[in-house]
C-alpha cells in the first residue's frame, strides 16, 4: 500500500478541465505540471488522456457512524467510499455513540482515520454535551487535542436555544473555530415527515415547513453578526434560506453555507412511492428550491457541496415511511451528481467545481494541506475523473457498508478513475488501490 517515495507521471490529464498536461508527483507533492513535463526515470506512468484532474475533494459533512453504529458504516468502509468518490478529506460528524463531545472521542476517530489511510478524517466536535442542547461541550480540549477540531456541530439536531448558540459562536473565536448549524426549529417540525407543500398534503404526511429552516438561519446570521463570529450552515435546502444567506453575505458577515448533492437533484414528488430511501433531514424540497440552490451554488452564495453521507442498514429503511431513519448515502455519487446538476447544465465549469468541492470546504474546515491548487510544490491530493461515461447507479457495488442511495437506478454521468492522497494512490482504475 505504501507508495510514498514513488514518482508518478500522470499523462495527458486536463487540469480543471483545461488543456492536457502531464502531472509529475514526487514523494507527496506535485513537482511539475505542464504539457510534456519530463518524467524522471523509474516513474510510474498513468495514462490519463481524456480525464479531468481536480484537487482532491473535501467533504464538510460525513457520517462515518463509528463508534457505535458499525453495522451502518465504519471509518474503514466510509473513508474507502470517500476515496472512490474522489475525496481526500472528510469531516466526520459528531453524532456517534458515544458522541464526539470530548477530546478522547475526537482523537480516537482521528486516529482510526489515519490507520485506515483512504483519506484524511477530520472530526467535528459536538456543540453540546451528548448533543442534548443544554450545556457546551469542551471545545478547547477538542481544539487542542491531536484531532485539532475547528468545526463544531450538533448536526442531526439544531442548537435551538438562542443563548447557547450565541455563547458557542462567541467561545470558538478564541481558536478560530466555526459553528456548523443544523437549522431546524424543533417545535415547527414535531413529527414532521416531508417537505410541507403540495405533495405532503396529498400524501397525508406531516409537513416540514421551509420556515422551520429559514427562521433559524435568519436568527443565527444575526447572532453571528452580533458577536462577529463564523457561522456555517449545514445542508441548505430552501429558496428562502438562499435569500437570507445572500442578504447576510451582502452585509459582510462571516456566514458560509453548504448544499448536498441530493438537494441539487431530487424533489419531494419522489416521496409518492413512500420509499424511505427518499426520507432525509432536511427533506427533499420542490423544483423551485432545487433551481434556487443551483443558482446559489453557481453564484457563490452557497459556498460548497457537502454530502451529508448518512448510511443506514437495510432494516432501518425497509419499513413504513414514518418509522424509517433519515438520511442517504452520497460519497460515491457526489461528483457525478454535481456534474449532472451543475456542469452539464452549464452552471459551473470544472475550475468552479474544484472551488466548491475542494478549496472552499477546506477553507471553511480550516484544513491546511487540503483544497490546494494543482501546482508545483502543493500536496499531491488529486482526483482523475472521466466525465464522458454514463452509467446506472447500483448501490450493491458501493464500498459503503450501507445501500441507501437515492440515486439507485438513475443514470448519472462520470466516473472517478483515480484518487491520490499526498502522492499515494487510494483509487486506481476506479477501484481501491
Amino acid at each position, binding site marked *: 500500500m505504501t507508495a510514498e517515495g514513488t514518482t508518478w507521471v500522470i499523462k495527458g490529464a486536463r487540469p480543471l478541465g483545461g488543456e492536457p498536461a502531464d502531472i509529475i508527483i514526487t514523494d507527496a507533492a506535485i513537482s511539475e505540471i505542464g504539457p510534456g513535463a519530463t518524467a524522471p526515470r523509474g516513474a510510474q506512468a498513468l495514462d490519463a488522456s481524456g480525464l479531468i484532474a481536480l484537487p482532491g475533494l473535501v467533504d464538510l459533512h460525513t457520517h462515518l457512524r463509528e463508534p457505535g453504529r458499525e453495522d451502518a458504516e465504519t471509518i474503514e468502509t466510509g473513508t474507502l467510499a470517500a476515496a472512490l468518490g474522489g475525496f481526500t478529506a472528510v469531516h466526520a460528524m459528531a453524532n456517534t455513540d458515544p458522541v464526539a463531545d470530548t477530546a478522547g472521542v475526537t482523537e480516537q476517530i482521528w486516529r482510526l482515520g489515519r490507520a485506515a489511510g483512504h483519506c484524511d478524517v477530520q472530526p467535528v466536535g459536538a456543540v453540546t454535551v451528548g448533543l442534548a442542547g443544554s450545556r457546551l461541550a469542551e471545545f478547547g480540549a477538542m481544539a487542542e487535542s491531536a484531532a485539532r477540531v475547528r468545526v463544531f456541530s450538533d448536526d442531526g439536531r439544531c442548537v435551538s436555544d438562542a443563548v447557547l448558540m450565541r455563547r458557542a459562536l462567541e467561545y470558538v473565536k478564541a481558536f478560530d473555530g466555526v459553528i456548523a448549524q443544523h437549522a431546524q426549529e424543533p417545535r415547527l417540525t414535531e413529527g414532521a415527515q416531508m417537505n410541507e407543500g403540495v405533495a405532503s398534503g396529498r400524501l*397525508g404526511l406531516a409537513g416540514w415547513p421551509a420556515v422551520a429552516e429559514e427562521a433559524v438561519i435568519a436568527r443565527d446570521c444575526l447572532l453571528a453578526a452580533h458577536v462577529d463570529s463564523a457561522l456555517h450552515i449545514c445542508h441548505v435546502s430552501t429558496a428562502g434560506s438562499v435569500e437570507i444567506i445572500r442578504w447576510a453575505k451582502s452585509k459582510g458577515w462571516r456566514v458560509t453555507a453548504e448544499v448536498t448533492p441530493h438537494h441539487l437533484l431530487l424533489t419531494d414528488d419522489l416521496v409518492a412511492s*413512500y420509499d424511505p430511501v427518499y426520507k432525509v433531514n432536511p427533506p427533499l424540497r420542490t423544483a423551485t428550491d432545487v433551481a434556487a440552490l443551483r443558482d446559489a451554488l453557481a453564484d457563490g452564495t452557497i459556498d460548497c457541496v457537502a454530502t451529508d453521507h448518512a448510511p443506514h442498514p437495510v432494516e432501518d429503511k*425497509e419499513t*413504513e415511511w*414514518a418509522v424509517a431513519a433519515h438520511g442517504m448515502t452520497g460519497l460515491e455519487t457526489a461528483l457525478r451528481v454535481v456534474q449532472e446538476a451543475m456542469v452539464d447544465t452549464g452552471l459551473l465549469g470544472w475550475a468552479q467545481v474544484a472551488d466548491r468541492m475542494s478549496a472552499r470546504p477546506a477553507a471553511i474546515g480550516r484544513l491546511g494541506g487540503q483544497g490546494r491548487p494543482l501546482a508545483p510544490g502543493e500536496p499531491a491530493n488529486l482526483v482523475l475523473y472521466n466525465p464522458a461515461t454514463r452509467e446506472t447507479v447500483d448501490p450493491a457495488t458501493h464500498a459503503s457498508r450501507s445501500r441507501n442511495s437515492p440515486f439507485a437506478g438513475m443514470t448519472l454521468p462520470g466516473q472517478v478513475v483515480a484518487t491520490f492522497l499526498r502522492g499515494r494512490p487510494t483509487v486506481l482504475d476506479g477501484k481501491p488501490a
Partner: protein
Amino acid sequence: MNRHLISAADLSKQDALLILDTAEELAQVADRPIKKLPTLRGRTVVNLFFEDSTRTRISFEAAAKRLSADVINFAVKGSSVAKGESLKDTALTLEAMGADAVVVRHSASGAPLRLSNWLRGSVINAGDGSHEHPTQALLDAFTIRRRFGRGDGEALDGLRVTIVGDVLHSRVARSNVWLLHLLGAEVALVAPPTLLPVAIDDWPCSVSYDLDAALPKSDVVMMLRIQQERMNAAYFPSVREYSRRYGLDTARVGQLPEDAIVMHPGPMNRGVEIAAEVADSPRSTIVEQVANGVSVRMAVLYLLLGGREVAQ
C-alpha cells in the same frame, strides 16, 4: 382493475362505477334470509389491523364471510408486531400462509403501498394514517347515489358535496375528494385554516372557511370527526368555539336545500361536529353508510379476487 386498492385516485371512472354497480347487486344478498354466497370459498382474506378500528374491521369481516372466504383477523396488540416485528416480516408471514387478500389498517401513511411491494396477494387499504381510506369513499359514493335515486351505471354528475372539518388529518376527505370528483360531483371543503393542508390548490375541489355560506349550495354535507388530540394542539381555541363555527346543528341544517343529506363516516362526537338531533334526523345517512359499507367491501373483495359472475 388494479390488483390492489391503495388509493381512490388509482381508480378509473369505469372501475369506480363497476364497484358501485357490483355492490348494488351484492346488496340484495343482505335482504335474503341466508346472507351468504359461495363466490370466494377457499380464498383467504386477512384483516391486518395495526390500529384499533372495530367498525371497519367487522365490516370487512362481514363482507368476506358473506362471500364464503376464510377470514383471519390479525390485530397488532399482543401480536409479534408489538414485540418489534417489522412490517416486512409480517408481510412475509402472511405470504407464507397463502393470504389471497390483505386488508390493512395502519397509522402510518403509505404502509399499504409498502406492503404491496412484498405480497403477491391483493392489498386493500382500510385506512392509512392521514392518507386515504378508499372503501369509505366508495361506500359514501354508493350511499349518495342511492339517496339521490340514481341507478346502475349512473355517476354523481351535478351533485354538490361539502366536506367539513379536519381535512388536514383526514384520510376520508382525501379519498372522497378524488373519488367524488371522478364521479362528476362538485366537491367543496370547509374547515378552519389550521385544519387544511397549506398547499391544496391542485386538489379538484373548492376551499372555504365559511360553513354558513356553503350550506345553501350543498346537496350533501359530510361532517368529519374531530380527533381528541387536535383539541390540545392549538388547531382551534376550544371545542365550543369549533362547534359554534363548524358544527352542524339544527339551525344550520335549516339552511340546506330540502332534499339534502347529512353524512358522517363515524364514529361521531355528538355535540361537537354534529348535533344529536341532526345525526338522528331523516336526512342523516349514518346508519345506511354502515350497511352500505358491507356491500361495497363485498364488491371490492369480489372484483379484486377475480370473481367472474355473481352467484345466483
